């Protein structure tokens, strides 16, 4: 526990402010250049030498994913759009009924998955198009680490699908309720969904054994695996909550680690890609860098009442980009 009476060491003064106009809903990187994703229409390239606004959608941007070479976004204009490091963009797909494209995921081999309504689509690395209809609206997509398999969250569980294997019957991991997001552990052994209730649900994939991860004060909206894949950092409480995923049982029968006790609720988490460090963004505007070994804290953004809505690290972890609901971006180079 942190003694809130003692000021934390702070790097907040060293952050570069990026005035953005509009709610920031995500942030990705092309090398050292952070790109903020707005809730509407545009991406903001925020290089130190100058900003560049790139309009990509004609409406809300509902989902985004990036793999270092492109940022893929889905919008309420029914379009799936890929933008490259130069800001050039192309439409990858258009929903024939102009339904919202509200889920996007990228695979390691160039595959892209997206969803509109109950249908999950995949364009494989080779450019083949596949789709799968699930029983209710797709609420989350995640590729397995090797990229061959796709996890699809929906009502009453998650569907596991091999898009490349034509005619392969998908597997269902069932659990009653509304599953609103999904992630797969970096070793491919566990699948975790966020639920409408204040809980996570997990399955050990080999035997579909259930894991319930509860105790949150709010719906969990942000998940991030630690650099070594041995723990899952989550938002949804007045701390950063880390569930252990070492060994064959994952978090079964284990307690989570609670770090970065805060007066405000944690809204976004992003683990450092190389070090045992996580960034945690809170509803009061503060962003804390949390050393996972001992819970030591450094302030990366001062509390200003602006809820933090996006966090992202550059691939090597030298740069942290932070965004708020009210449109304040900041970039901290470590």
């Amino acid at each position, binding site marked *: 526990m942190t003694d809130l009476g003692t000021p934390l060491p702070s790097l907040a003064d060293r952050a570069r402010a990026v005035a953005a106009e509009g*709610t920031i*809903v995500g942030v990705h990187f092309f090398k050292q250049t952070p790109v903020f994703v707005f*809730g*509407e229409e545009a991406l903001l390239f925020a290089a130190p030498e100058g900003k560049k606004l790139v309009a990509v959608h004609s*409406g*809300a*941007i*509902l989902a985004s994913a990036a793999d270092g070479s492109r940022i893929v976004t889905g919008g*309420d204009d029914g379009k799936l759009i890929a933008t490259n490091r130069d800001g050039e963009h192309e439409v990858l797909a258009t929903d024939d*009924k102009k*339904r*919202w494209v*509200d889920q996007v995921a990228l695979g390691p081999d160039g595959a892209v998955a997206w969803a509109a*309504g*109950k249908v999950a689509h995949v364009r494989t690395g080779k450019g083949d198009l596949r789709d799968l209809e699930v029983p*209710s*609206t797709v*609420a989350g997509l995640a590729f397995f680490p090797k990229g061959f398999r796709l996890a699809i969250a929906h*009502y*009453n569980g998650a569907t596991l699908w091999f898009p490349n294997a034509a005619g392969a019957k998908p597997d269902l991991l069932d659990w*009653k*309720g*509304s599953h*609103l997001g999904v992630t797969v552990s970096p070793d491919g052994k566990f699948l975790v969904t966020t*639920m*409408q*209730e204040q*809980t996570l649900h997990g399955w050990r994939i080999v035997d579909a054994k259930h894991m319930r991860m509860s105790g949150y004060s*709010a*719906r969990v909206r942000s998940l991030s695996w630690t650099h070594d894949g041995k723990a899952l950092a989550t938002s949804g409480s007045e701390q950063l909550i880390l569930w252990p995923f070492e060994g064959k049982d994952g978090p079964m029968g284990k307690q989570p680690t609670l770090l970065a006790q805060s007066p405000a609720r944690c809204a976004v988490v992003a683990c450092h890609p190389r070090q045992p460090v996580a960034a945690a963004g809170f509803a009061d505007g503060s962003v804390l860098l949390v050393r996972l070994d001992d819970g030591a804290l450094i302030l990366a953004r001062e509390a200003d009442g602006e809820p933090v809505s996006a966090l992202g690290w550059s691939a090597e972890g030298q740069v942290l980009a932070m965004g708020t609901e009210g449109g304040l971006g900041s970039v901290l180079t470590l």
Partner: protein
Amino acid sequence: MTTAPQTEKIPVTVLTGYLGAGKTTLLNRILSEPHGKKYAVIVNEFGEIGIDNELVVNADEEVFEMNNGCICCTVRGDLVRIIDGLMRRKGKFDAIIVETTGLADPAPVAQTFFMDENVGAKTRLDAVVTVADAKWLKDRLKDAPEAKNQIAFADVILLNKTDLVTPGELAEVEARIRAINPYAKLHRTERSKIALDEVLGRNAFDLDRILDIEPEFLTADDHDHHDHDHDHGHDHHHGGLKHYHDEDMQSISLNTAKPLDPDKFFPWVQDLVATEGKDILRSKGILNFKNDEERFVFQGVHMILDGDHQRKWKEGEARTSRIVFIGRHLPEDKIRKGFENCIA
């Protein structure tokens, strides 16, 4: 739980009505009249609206049960996602209208606003508006439980197509509506023509406005007097309202001038909605607790209760506690006895 003041939240109007009642006509009217406001509209997949509006979203009406041990606690999961998406375009619209299918139960829509924190923090339920067909409603109340739910749940009812019925038929269908729900604002309309401020911006779920529901109760009595000519042999009156023996959906009104004991009242009402909540569609109340200078108000949807101190009792104001339940097969005697036991 919520931080933004009521006024900053985007109001959401739920538009229900059985097939063919005139719901889409009303929706088109709302969208096309020159009011200078922009509405985001969530329609069901089968709905057709004739107005070009970039903020129209198709919904699938995906209902699911919350895993909280409350069997009637159903939520529209699609609304959770759609409102999240719409709020990314905050500033582009003034209000949201949710049109349900003709066969939809309004409860999951309403419960979504109480059960999802993000939805509740950014939007507020304004009112449930039900369009009813003056000619056919009487039949639908017999054969379609959905139509009955929509009437029972409503804050505002448009009794539409009044030009297609005789004055006698109109009075009869109004009495039927009043027997189920005496508290809704009832408007007679033709081709869904109505001043929009009668259906939008009603604040019907605002605890501060619960008092405003009462006058309609009194006018319901007035209607009833006019209706004497049309009474049939099997009807009789309960608390000033016409009671139909073939009607399983009823409202129960309780009141007492004696102060209530909060330590008895809260366990009682919580137990009541826990056991009967499946059949209680809506509840509302203004309460006078002993040794409490402030009025306590509450409202509920099935098992979900929402209540707070509202304001100080005014000088000379009658400190009467009043509660209303609208529901199906309500055990009236048990409820009345339970309420009386809460008197301090």
